[in-house]
């Protein structure tokens, strides 16, 4: 069954088709959830609720544009609106560097670790970091999605980078020390 046909069946509420769709996209969407959520468990909950939302909204999909992009956007928006109620006001006064560089051995860093420190970021930093760095949204788009202003978006990104850099460097030096 082609994807379009599968989508049609899902529109009708065919549970077998819905299961197929889930199997096709769950890995990708779960990775999205992992990046945006605070923990593995929360990511699972978000995936579950996200898919239920997708199956509801699938009726509105008009076969225009990428389906994968569409469902990914649904999940991201779903997670964002969960955090939107949290008001974290940032007063942007400081200057921050655009690029934050890190000295690193590529093989030193494990995915698990990177994922973990992303999840450990404060929500607003994590969301901005993911949206900008990993999912390619612009600051203008992020500002709209998170209902913050562009300056805040930029400063949040910078702070996220700083924190991540610190954590990576700390881990690297620990390992270095242990290796000694």
């Amino acid at each position: 069954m082609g994807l379009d046909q599968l989508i049609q069946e899902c529109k009708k509420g065919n549970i077998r088709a819905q299961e197929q769709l889930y199997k096709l996209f769950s890995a990708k969407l779960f990775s999205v959830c992992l990046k945006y959520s605070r923990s593995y468990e929360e990511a699972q909950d978000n995936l579950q609720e996200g898919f239920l939302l997708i199956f509801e909204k699938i009726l509105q999909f008009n076969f225009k544009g990428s389906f994968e992009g569409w469902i990914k956007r649904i999940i991201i928006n779903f997670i964002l609106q969960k955090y939107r109620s949290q008001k974290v006001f940032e007063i942007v006064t400081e200057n921050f560097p655009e690029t934050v560089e890190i000295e690193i051995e590529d093989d030193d860093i494990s995915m698990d670790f990177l994922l973990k420190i992303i999840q450990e970021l404060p929500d607003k930093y994590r969301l901005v970091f993911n949206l900008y760095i990993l999912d390619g949204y612009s600051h203008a788009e992020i500002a709209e999605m998170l209902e913050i202003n562009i300056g805040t978006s930029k400063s949040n990104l910078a702070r996220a980078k700083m924190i991540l850099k610190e954590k990576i460097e700390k881990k690297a030096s620990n390992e270095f020390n242990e290796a000694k």
Partner: protein
Amino acid sequence: MKNKKDIGRLFQEKFKDFEEIPDELVWNAIEEKLRKKEEKKRVIPLWWKLSGVAALFIIGILLYQNSTATKITNEEEKIVFENDKNSTNDILIPEEKEENNNKNEEKIVFENENASGNKENITKKSNRSNWKTDKNAAVVSTKNNKSKISNESFSNSIREKNTFINNKNSSFIRNSKEKIASQNTNQSEKSTINLNTENKLIFDLDKSITEKKTITNENKIDSTKTETSLAEVKVEPNALEELLSEKEKKPKVEPKLNKWEITTAIAPVYLGSSSNGSPIDSQFANNSKEYENTMSYGVGINYSLNKKFTVRTGVNKVNLSYLTNNVEFYPEIGTSRIQNIKYGGQGVFINIQNILLEPRVNLNASQFGSIQQMMSYYEVPFEVSYRLLNKRFGINLIGGVSSFVLDDNKIMVVSDDFSALVGEANNLNKLHFSTNFGIGFRYSFFKSFQANFEPTFKYQLNAFSHNNGGFRPYFIGLYSGISYRF
């Protein structure tokens, strides 16, 4: 080797193809919720369908009642006979025609004293019919597919009983004539008409007939359905005669078959206000108001939902007028314009003032008199009436709302020998509403005609859009007129 890299790029590269398969339990939870939603979705449309069917059924019954009620006048057209050779004496029993006969059908003619009283009338109207008379036979037509009558249709028929008992004769005749007509046309049609008419005829007989009794009656008749000849067959004459006599003992109830009624109503209208105040200007708030007697005239149309409740609407033209006394007015293009007046005509040159106000100016030229405010509306009432007493003389309670559309709007100054148009009020709403409450007295003086007298109190809700100055008008109309039922 250590590389310097922008941290952002580092993450991008690492996460480029990041995918992770979630635990099975996630899908299990999703599937469970999906199934629950499916369940819900199935149940709701079912309810909608059921209620839709029920609604259609009820509407169908109401329409059927309505249409059958009005068929009486079309008797002659309804009777379609192929062989009109035989002369007729009285009606009541259709003569079976072999070519059109459903051999399995049996007909029994029922008749009682009241019917016989009308026999003459009926004869005259349908001379071409091939009816025979038989005094003591009962008409309950039966069909093969009697079993199709479900309990549901029976109970619905019971609810219809009032209309048919009250107009038993005409409905009986109509029913029978329908049977004749249908016989000559269409076999299949016949079954449905007969089915319905059976039910109605049965409940025609007596309110007190229980479901059981009629079913048993019908079943018994059913068992003898191989007969083809008509009329002379007497089935359970005893039971039926019993019902006959019971029926006769019942007092004749005024036929309520006619649901529609048109009325005319003229009313003297007494305007008042529940609080003193002036919607013209606050300076006149405490001036005495004199409410003039005016008239309302209109027509109405009523529809009876059942014996007790009737919904009513119609159109009236109502004129309201009152005076604000103790004012003086004089010609001057004054600087003190009254806010709520839109000046027109000569009004620009008239200055109005409360006599009791200081300072008084221009004593020589001023006239003493009143301000007359006149408003006329087209009123569309929406009311419900509840029948308290239902004899030749009836009483009902009336309640509802009316909507008023502003037509005429004038403010004038009047004195003993002078009057002039000042302008119009600018604070009157083009559309406003009232709540109505009244008591209706009616007297049936001739056939379907009635005389009505309905004093009704109508409290105006939002006559003024602003600055009503504490003036809250209401009016009482003594609506009297004639109405005709059909």
